[in-house]
């Protein structure tokens, strides 16, 4: 099972100190968080993609390329890559390039975005959101899998004999997750291709999330990629921890109350009851996170949101230390011991390359086998 952190990249005033970081400071902070994730032994760092203030990460491969150069183990991902408004040709090129520079430590999560005006800013219409996600991704897959592509669709200028460069590392395209909160069409898309499905999970009641995750699992099986419980599921999570539960709640409360998402809504306690938000002792966080498995089945990737809502860097790094020292090692052990042998890990470049090599070996072997059959 993979554990990691994902950043939204918001520049939010710290409600306690009253200080707002500059974009320069915030960008450095995101890099520090990514390096810390590697240091504490997490598996994944993922960045969001936004094109409006107060968010800074508009250029994910620049950020991830820089982090790739400073790390050697952690897998770099997105949360999410806007498949609707980015040109699929540019996604194919950018992430193949990143894949080479990061030595395969790359996967992506496709998303439609949640900011309406982004569509017109990039020349699209929000009413085409699903159709864009379907068509653009279908093209992206071909660009990574076929050396020469001729293509015509509804949303992008046609391609004639086009080759996306660089070709994916070792001829193996990055693994793709599809993120969605409420769209069965996107779960359907993930299931059809046998790709991963990620539910942000935070902010939503478990029943809501489970409906979509279970739908994806059933459709994964329907399309013949394996049993429903072998589908590749990722979930978000949001935690704040201190040794004593009450200290965690007292310290986190002003950040909750002034959060751009939570502020003005139900109380922190109600939100903790209704959604996966966990504020408490490391033991409470462990117990809560283990309930995800009961609700959504054995899953492959757990991402926590680390830096957000104006939390100071020092606090974020302390949180990550607790995560790395006390929470993730226990969760790893627990999840691994509970997971049946037939449930796979999330694909990585190494596992996909091994599978591709095996497939090729079979192909080269089979004519010989056929020849033997004929001479009999």
């Amino acid at each position, binding site marked *: 099972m993979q554990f990691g952190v994902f950043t939204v990249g918001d520049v939010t005033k710290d409600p306690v100190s009253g200080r707002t970081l500059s974009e320069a400071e915030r960008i450095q902070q995101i890099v520090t968080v990514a390096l810390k994730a590697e240091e504490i032994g997490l598996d994944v760092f993922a960045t969001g993609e936004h094109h409006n203030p107060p968010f800074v990460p508009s250029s994910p491969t620049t950020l991830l390329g820089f982090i790739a150069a400073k790390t050697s183990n952690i897998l770099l991902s997105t949360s999410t890559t806007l498949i609707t408004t980015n040109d699929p040709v540019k996604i194919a090129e950018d992430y193949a390039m990143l894949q080479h520079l990061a030595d395969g430590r790359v996967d992506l999560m496709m998303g439609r975005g949640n900011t309406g005006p982004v569509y017109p800013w990039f020349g699209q219409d929000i009413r085409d959101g699903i159709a864009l996600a*379907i068509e653009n991704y*279908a093209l992206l897959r071909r660009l990574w899998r076929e050396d020469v592509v001729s293509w015509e669709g509804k949303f992008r200028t046609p391609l004639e004999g086009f080759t996306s460069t660089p070709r994916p590392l070792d001829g193996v395209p990055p693994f793709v997750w599809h993120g969605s909160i409420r769209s069965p*069409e996107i779960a359907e898309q993930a299931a059809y291709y046998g790709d991963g499905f990620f539910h942000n999970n935070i902010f939503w009641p478990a029943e809501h999330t489970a*409906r979509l995750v279970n*739908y994806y699992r059933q459709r994964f099986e329907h*399309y013949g990629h394996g049993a429903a419980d072998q589908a590749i599921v990722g979930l978000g999570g949001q935690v704040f921890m201190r040794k004593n539960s009450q200290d965690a709640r007292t310290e986190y409360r002003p950040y909750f109350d002034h959060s751009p998402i939570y502020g003005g*809504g*139900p109380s922190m306690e109600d939100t903790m009851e*209704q959604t996966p938000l966990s504020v408490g002792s490391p033991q409470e966080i462990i117990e809560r996170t283990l309930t995800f498995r009961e609700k959504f089945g054995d899953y492959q990737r757990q991402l926590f949101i680390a830096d957000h809502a104006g939390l100071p860097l020092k606090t974020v790094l302390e949180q990550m230390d607790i995560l790395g020292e006390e929470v993730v090692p226990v969760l790893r052990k627990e999840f691994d011991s509970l997971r049946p042998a037939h449930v796979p890990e999330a694909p990585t470049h190494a596992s996909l390359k091994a599978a591709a090599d095996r497939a090729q070996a079979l192909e080269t072997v089979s004519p010989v086998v056929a020849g033997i059959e004929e001479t009999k």
Partner: protein
Amino acid sequence: MTTERKIAVVSAGLTTPSSTRLLADQLTAAVRDNLDGRGTPYQVRVFELRDLAHDLTNNLLTGFPSKELGEVLEYVVQADALIAVTPTFSASYNGLFKMFFDVLDDKALVGKPVLIGATGGTERHSLVLDYALRPLFAYLQAVVVPTGVYAASSDWGPHAVALRSRVERAALELVDAMSNARPAPVDPYANPVPFEDLLNG
């Protein structure tokens, strides 16, 4: 055998008791009488939006309903008919009333018979039914019965007889409309669109 009809009543009065609830109760009673007369089995649930005011605000901010509000919304979705009554505020329905229909799924009322009612201090506001409520429910593609019932303060005294006849006419229209079959709500999870269709869409 006639199947049991479900009737949802939504009242956006702000006080307890309120004249809005009084009108909602009269409309409900008239619908009950009519169904009793036809021997149609039914159940009625009346929802005071005041009790759900905080849950409605929270739903707007979080994007999902509390358990209690979720059950109310589900009842309205499943109902065969809706009686919706609001006080008149600034030439329209009040904010509480609108919040309820903002968080209700926008397909929930398609084809559903709806009886609209409104209350106000004087008769001068009576067009609120036709200029505010009717367009709202037209947008939601509900089947609003021709008679809407507006009750001013005076309708609770000297004009009560005239009010009663409007109430009875509206109730008759609602029950008549309920006998028409309407499409069952579509569950996108139960009937997935195959991916090939999405791809060729």
